[in-house]
Structures are given as structure tokens and as C-alpha cells.
């Protein structure tokens, strides 16, 4: 697997990939996360770089270490990540969306209609 986003250092991209694994529950709380060697092989990078990706999650206390066994997902990690994304990701995107709508003279009503349409297309309503 190759990571492509050239703007971010590889280890940050690996950290982001791991966060999505946790959010999408491919690794549950107290589940074992990939080792730096597994990540190195998966992403074709040096194990030290892969280790840095893990360290980011460890420092955010999303992972914990068991000596000799590896790293595991902290209880509540998924919820904290989702909250973080809600705060940063969605809020920022909604603000940008509203700004763009103003530039294009789209009314609040029209924008809400577009959002409803998008929901219907996604089959979530």
C-alpha cells in the first residue's frame, strides 16, 4: 500500500490511517494494534518511521503499551477520536460550506435543501 498525500510526513499519514481503523472499529478497545514492523511492511516504510506514527497515538493516549506484548487501543479511544473530528473536521467543513454558499448567493434554505438531497443520495435517511 502506498500513501500519497505528499503534504504530510509519512508518519502523520500513518497515524491518521490508524485513527480511521479505530473509528471504523476494525480494531476495538483493548484490541492489539499493528506493530511497527507490520506497518512498515504495509506502507513500504522504515520501521522507525512507522514507529513514529504509533508514538503519535500513544502520546494522545489513544493507545497503551503492554510490556513485551505490543500496543493496544485504549478504552474510549474511538469516542474521543470521533469527538475530535466533530470539533475540528465537520465544524471546519460546515463553516467553509456556509462561506462558499454566501459567495455564490445561495440562500440558507437552498443550502439546507442541498444537504437534504445529499443525505437522500447517501441512503441515510
Amino acid at each position: 500500500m502506498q500513501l500519497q498525500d505528499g503534504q504530510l510526513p509519512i508518519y502523520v499519514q500513518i497515524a491518521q490511517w490508524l485513527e480511521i481503523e479505530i473509528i471504523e472499529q476494525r480494531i476495538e478497545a483493548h484490541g492489539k494494534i499493528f506493530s511497527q514492523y507490520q506497518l512498515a511492511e504495509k506502507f513500504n516504510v522504515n520501521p522507525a518511521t512507522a514507529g513514529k506514527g504509533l508514538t503519535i497515538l500513544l502520546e494522545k493516549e489513544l493507545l497503551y503499551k503492554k510490556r513485551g506484548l505490543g500496543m493496544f487501543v485504549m478504552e474510549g479511544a474511538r469516542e474521543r477520536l470521533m469527538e475530535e473530528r466533530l470539533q475540528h473536521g465537520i465544524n471546519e467543513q460546515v463553516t467553509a460550506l456556509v462561506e462558499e454558499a454566501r459567495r455564490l448567493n445561495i440562500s440558507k434554505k437552498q443550502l439546507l435543501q442541498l444537504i437534504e438531497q445529499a443525505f437522500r443520495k447517501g441512503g441515510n435517511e
Partner: protein
Amino acid sequence: MIHCEHVSKKIGRKVVLQELNLHIDEPKLVGLVGRNGAGKSTLMSLIAGLELPTTGRVTVLERPAFDQLYVAVNTVYIHPNMTFPTHLSLREICQMGAQFYMNWDCTLSDKLLAYFELPMHQTFQQLSTGMKSMFATIFALSTRAAVTLLDEPINGIDEGLRSEMYRVILKDYLAHPRLMIIASHLLDELEHLLEEIVILHDRQVIVHKNIDDFAASHVIWEGDLSKMLAAYPDALIIERSPFGTDRVVVPSSVTASFTQQAISAKELYLYQTAEKKGTIDDVFSNDE
């Protein structure tokens, strides 16, 4: 593992390396880069014990490197100009390797040579440039030598097989961590594999760092050149644009409110080793 202390090397009258110091103590994937003629190959052959430094000391695995059997059986050095005995087929060369190197991995050499479809009955001289590189790299990995020196291991290998060869190197390193030093001009293809980078320039090691830290040590600013130079006079100018968005490289420790961009290890290496003599466009320019 490898210690070069105050190493100088003269070849004829030319000083290739001067007062060079390099210390690597752990198994790692290290990239050795430098512009043409920077002395990469000379440094590698000193570490492999094929040559004596003019002055200074090269120690490999706690012993003086030059002409030491112990260093020889624990070191492998491949490079684009190497030769193997002309009367031996690839299969016989591997058998010879297995006799010399105690940890020779027959399974690995057999599987890789079959996978890459190298003609085992032919001699090394009969191979194409790319196949020579592949064979030499597979040979080097199969030795499992504690110190593995790969000088341009991907030399001449076609685009389609290059990424596979990089993966071979990484997977074998993961399975059997050991010191691998890779000299290459293809830093952009290679940099993700590396843990450390060593840059040779002006006859010395000017950088020896973790490669992620190296890339993070500088950033690119975008903006108005005069303002950026006012904020950091030593900024390295990399692009002057007629539209007012010039680009410079500065240490990431400098704070300023210009648009910032990350820089890759390859770009930073190129800027840091550039000779300041204008650009190729100046050569073709008709202006007097």
C-alpha cells in the same frame, strides 16, 4: 559497528575525503547521498576494507577494516562497476557465495533469482545492466552480512521492477535487521525506506540524521521575496516568480506568518548541496 575517524583519502593528487567522521552503532537502513564525485563509492570501499585511508582510521565491527578476513566475511559491497569471476555461471557464483559467507541464505537467493527470472546458466558478464544490478543486489542480500553496502543497487533496473526491488530490500531488512547502507541518486524513490540519511559534500559528512527529522528541520515559505528575506536574511531562494509568490527554504525553527509548506528530504538535500552558480537556464540564455 562502523567508525570512521578523521578519515582522509587522496586518489592521485585529488583529495576525495578530508577529515571525515561517521559513526553508526546499530542495525539500520541508512541512505548515503552526495552529488557526483562526492566520494560515496570511495567511502564505501574504505568501509568494505578494500582500500586504506590516506590518514585516519576506519573500524568495522570493532576491527580495522582494511584487509581483515573477519571484516570481509561480515561485509558485502556491491556497486555498478563490480565484476564476478568470468568463467562462473550465476548458479556457481551463488555456490561460491554460500561457501564464503557463513549465513548465506540459499532459500532467499533461489526464490528471488527465480522470481526475477535471471538466467542461472549464464555468466554475470552476459547480463544486461539492469539484470546485473538485480543479481548483485540479490547476491548481497543473500549473504546476510552484518554490514551490507549497496552502491546504486537499483542502477539500470526498469521502472516496473524498481519498486519491487525496493520492497525486496525492505522485507529482507525487516526479517533480518542489519546495517544496510544504500548509496543512491534516487533519493525520492528511496527516502521512505530509510531511517537515517548521511550527506557527503565538500569531502565531508555534512548531515547525519534521522531522515524524518532532517526533512522536518526546514520548511518552504511562499510569499514576497523582500519581505521573506527581511524576516530571515539567510533564506535560500528556490523560486522567483513573476506573480509575487516566491519560494524560499528556511529552518523550521524560524517563526513568521508566511504560507508554509513541508519539504521532502530529497529537495532539502538538493538545496543544501547546490553549488551557487546560477541555473541551467543561464547556460542557454542569449542575454549578455
